[in-house]
């Protein structure tokens, strides 16, 4: 289990992370969300021991993370951290050796992962001749070459096309099923919603949302009603009690209500219309919760 306990990090007068706490159990995928400069990378660096927390402690299975335990951790850095003049095979070997693996084990695992990511032909190629997406794959392979118990992924999907994103997600799911703890940061909230169990949203170093996604959504009162019907009147909808906003989408109307109890008022109006094809009350999307909590700063990202 990874425990981050009341951690704070100051850089001079600037507080990058302020009293952050969370835990990750084996087999859990944990999302760390936030705008640029929210403190995500600083948190990861503190977990890896690259930065010393000003306050608080971080434990992996009850022990402080030291250079003796880093071999069980995989770390993918946000910006590509590859020695670009090296060949793929040499770089993976080099990084693998820094995880105390033998050359034979690294070679065997390297062949497997290169094949799984369809880049086995690049085995003998120099890193700087590869596309950004393929460099990202190499970086991902270097972070999982040691079959980590704790996998830290800082923006793992940036610069990836949807197909490769799916491939990354599959691999992350595999590690999850083997009991690894996975923590990752992303700007793409859809990914968090699709495969995270728990998350924290950071804003200026402080957690503004945290917990299990189902609980966060449940606790969030606002709901959306999706409607397809003839002659919907926006002004009329906005006069109904509890309706906050009405958004006209390409093929449906989205009526935002303050609580699910106000759905009946909207339903009373919609049932008077002709051709009602859809009336669906759903929980607010994670991105809406995120924007609601983080506000304009996220929209600027």
């Amino acid at each position, binding site marked *: 289990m990874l425990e981050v306990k009341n951690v704070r990090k100051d850089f001079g007068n600037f507080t990058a992370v302020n009293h952050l706490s969370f835990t990750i159990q084996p087999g859990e995928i944990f999302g760390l969300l936030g705008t640029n400069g929210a403190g995500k990378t600083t948190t990861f660096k503190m977990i890896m021991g690259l930065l010393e927390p000003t306050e608080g402690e971080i434990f992996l299975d009850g022990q402080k993370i030291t*250079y003796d335990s880093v071999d069980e*951790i995989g770390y993918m850095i946000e910006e590509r951290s*590859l020695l670009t003049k090296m060949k793929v095979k040499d770089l993976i070997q080099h990084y693998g050796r820094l995880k105390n693996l033998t050359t034979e084990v690294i070679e065997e695992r390297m062949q497997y992962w290169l094949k799984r990511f369809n880049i086995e032909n690049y085995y003998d190629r120099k890193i700087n001749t590869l596309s950004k997406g393929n460099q990202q794959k190499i970086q991902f392979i270097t972070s999982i070459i040691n079959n980590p118990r704790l996998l830290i992924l800082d923006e793992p999907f940036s610069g990836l096309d949807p197909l490769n994103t799916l491939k990354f997600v599959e691999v992350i799911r595999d590690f999850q099923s083997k009991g690894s703890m996975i923590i990752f940061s992303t700007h793409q909230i859809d990914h968090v919603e699709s495969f995270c169990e728990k998350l924290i949203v950071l804003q200026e170093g402080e957690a503004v949302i945290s917990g299990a996604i189902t609980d966060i959504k449940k606790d969030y009162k606002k709901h959306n009603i999706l409607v397809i019907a003839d002659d919907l009147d926006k002004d009329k909808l906005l006069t109904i009690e509890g309706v906050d906003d009405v958004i006209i989408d390409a093929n449906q109307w989205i009526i935002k209500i303050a609580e699910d109890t106000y759905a009946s008022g909207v339903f009373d109006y919609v049932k008077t219309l002709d051709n009602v094809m859809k009336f669906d009350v759903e929980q607010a999307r994670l991105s809406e919760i995120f924007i609601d909590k983080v506000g304009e700063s996220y929209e600027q990202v």
Partner: protein
Amino acid sequence: MNKFKYLFTYQLKQKLTAKSFLVSNIIIFVVLMLLLNINNIVRAFDDGSDGADLVYVYNQTDNPNIMSELEVYEDEISSQLGTSGVYFVSIDSFDPDSYEFEGSSAILVINQEGESLSADLFINDLNVYKRTSIQNALEKLRQDYLLEDKTQEEKDLIIEFLTPMDFTPHLTEDTQGKEILSGIASFVSLPIFMLIIFAVQAVGASIVEEKQTKAVEYIIANVSPNKHFFAKILTNFIFLTIQLLLILVYGLIGGLLSIYVFGGYDMSAGLGLSDTIALSYGIDNATMDNIMKQLPLTVFFFIGFTGLGGLLYMIVMGFVASISNSNEDYGQFQTPLMMLMLGGFYAAMFGTMFGDTNIIIKIMAYIPVFSPFMAPSLYLAGAFNWIEALISLLILALTSLFMYKLIMPMYKNAILSYSTDKMTVRIKKAFSRSKHNK
């Protein structure tokens, strides 16, 4: 294998198997072979006749044998000077207002007024050595001419007038050895300077590359900064030592080739190596023995100052590289240190070149930033005795240790920081954070 050992062996292997290492060593080897055997090479291509210049002689004296006498003297003198000499061809007429060289290098006109001889040399293309040999031959000819048909008393008087004052400098064996060593002292700083520059650039480039590509974050996440930094320094230190030893081996091979293969060393003559070297370079045996006695300490100080000087500069340059975000930063930040190195190098070169060494030069040779370049030169030049050189070496060793202790805690903060502040601010930040993180 622990990670430090892995990093050390990995980096050393990378360096020793690099193409640049192979190519540079081939070049160094070839250059050293050429330098050490240049005399033999020149001798191999010089059979003594090809370079002889044609000089026409217009004889206006009443002595018809003057040509043959001149030739004998010129041959003698040019062989002493080691030049290919000239050969003379007599001409029947010469007009100083209108003449042509017609393929000759010069035209020599020998005149006579009473008993006195004079000469004019009209030069087309004749080097200074050959001019000197002709002049000396003419001088001998003049002496012969003056002595002709004289009584013994007159001859003695003339010879006494013509003989220059006998002036013989008497050097002790020790002084002569020192003179030879001080002759090469000013050049000793050059290989030290080159090797240290080579080593610090390698450390800096390697750290900057890892930092610039952010690979250092992956590496430091797995290996402690202490191990990372020390592995870099040790790798380059060992690499520098290997390179140094290789150069010494190349020099030894070159010297042995020069003596045993090209120099025609006669095993049956029963001469020792130092005797043979003395013979090859025209040094008397006693002086050579004296030089050989000084050689072990000279080599010790050369290796000691190069190694420890390299270490000190690598530690400092490693830190400078760690606060740099790019090669441009590094290039800018290392300038003050490069200036210090250049200062030490020039002080060593010119401080020993003119023999006398002033007190400022001697003080500089104790200052660790200058001593790697200066102390070995001063020792060779005789300005430092072995105790003074050893004290300078100890100061250098202690300073290197102090700098390592000072810089090490700052390194972790510096290498993971991408601050764009001024250099001094970055150093201050690294220092204050290192104290905070203790």
